[in-house]
């Protein structure tokens, strides 16, 4: 039934920027004030952190600001990190906390489509007469996907981005978001189904998603 074809290959799983041993050595050096080692850590994780924040906020400017401040705070608090091997999840949490502090009263909220936009989005894809393959590559689709992610409740958005976009293992995600594996697994499932349903709503049945519910 194509189940094995659909399954994600383990090769697509997010690869670690460094081997565990190398990571621990770099963090140890950075802890002793070696800025070159910290720069290497930055090279390994800055892009990931920035894209994660970008997916959460939809704002490139916020993503840059939060990422920059996250690395500065990480350097300052590096000695508080007990397990050097947990640097990545620790850094993600710093970035997340920094993002929430930036917004203080409310969690970052991406602009969602109003009713008119939703209609126009769906119509434009259909009226253009594009094939599903063309639609997947279109800018309109990109905007829809970004908006759908932005409409997700915060806890679903986090785990959705980390699992579906950044392809982190569930265990790594539990470390980043600080919730139990069962909770993360459940939230990932709900988030992914929710995103699928909302995208399908925008695109209509022409996309080729079968209605199964």
């Amino acid at each position: 039934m194509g189940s094995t074809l659909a399954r994600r290959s383990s090769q697509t799983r997010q690869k670690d920027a460094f081997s565990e041993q190398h990571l621990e050595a770099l963090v140890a050096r950075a802890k002793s004030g070696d800025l070159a080692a910290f720069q290497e850590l930055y090279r390994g994780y800055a892009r990931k952190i920035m894209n994660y924040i970008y997916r959460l906020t939809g704002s490139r400017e916020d993503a840059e600001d939060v990422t920059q401040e996250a690395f500065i705070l990480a350097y300052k608090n590096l000695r508080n990190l007990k397990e050097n091997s947990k640097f990545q999840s620790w850094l993600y949490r710093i970035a997340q906390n920094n993002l929430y502090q930036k917004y203080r009263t409310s969690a970052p909220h991406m602009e969602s489509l109003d009713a008119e936009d939703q209609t126009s989005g769906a119509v434009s894809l259909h009226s253009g007469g594009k094939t599903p393959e063309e639609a997947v590559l279109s800018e309109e689709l990109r905007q829809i996907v970004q908006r759908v992610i932005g409409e997700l409740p915060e806890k679903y958005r986090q785990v959705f981005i980390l699992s579906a976009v950044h392809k982190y293992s569930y265990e790594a995600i539990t470390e980043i978001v600080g919730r139990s594996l069962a909770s993360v697994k459940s939230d990932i499932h709900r988030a992914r189904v929710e995103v699928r349903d909302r995208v399908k709503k925008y695109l209509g049945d022409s996309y080729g998603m079968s209605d199964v519910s």
Partner: protein
Amino acid sequence: MECLTFRESLIAYLDDEVTEKESELIEGHLHCCSSCAAELQSLSVSYRMLNDALETIDVSPEMWPRIEAAIRRRAEVPGSGWRSSPALWLPPPLRPWAASLIAVALLAVSAWLLSPALQKPDPQLEELRQQLSTMVEEMDQQDTLRHSMPPPSDQDEYDSNPFAPQHVVYNPFHASGTETRSLFAGAEGRGGTTDFRVDESEAKETR
């Protein structure tokens, strides 16, 4: 009911987050349930579509210089809680040797501070010593002069300075009643005053 249970595991199955045994159970169910197989296909398509549609942004090349500058700037603020590693102030090639360089620098400074060349006498201290010596000599001369004069009356001495330590002891119960003598009488008898001066001059030489 069985389908609902399996469907809750389909995302984990897509993500390779199920055990081998769970995977076999799910695949067994998918072979005989077209509805669940279609659901899996739908989720898989949306998964690929999302990844293709989402853009990835690149980090600005200016970000690291800004971070490095901020780290250095904040490390300069006293009491900021920032680690102000000495390594930060060294050129990058020397940073791994920071600890060794600091140790060598400390040793060099200690050696310089302890060197005999630095043990020069303080001119002010020397001047003070000379003034003190002069004062002691004058006091000796006055002391000698006083001993050569007749002692003042006991009452006058007591009234002017009840704690006068010099040569007056008045004992009203003494048999003679009016006898006075110097506390240094014994010493004078043994040449004490002279000895004192010699000792002082020796001390001056020592100083």
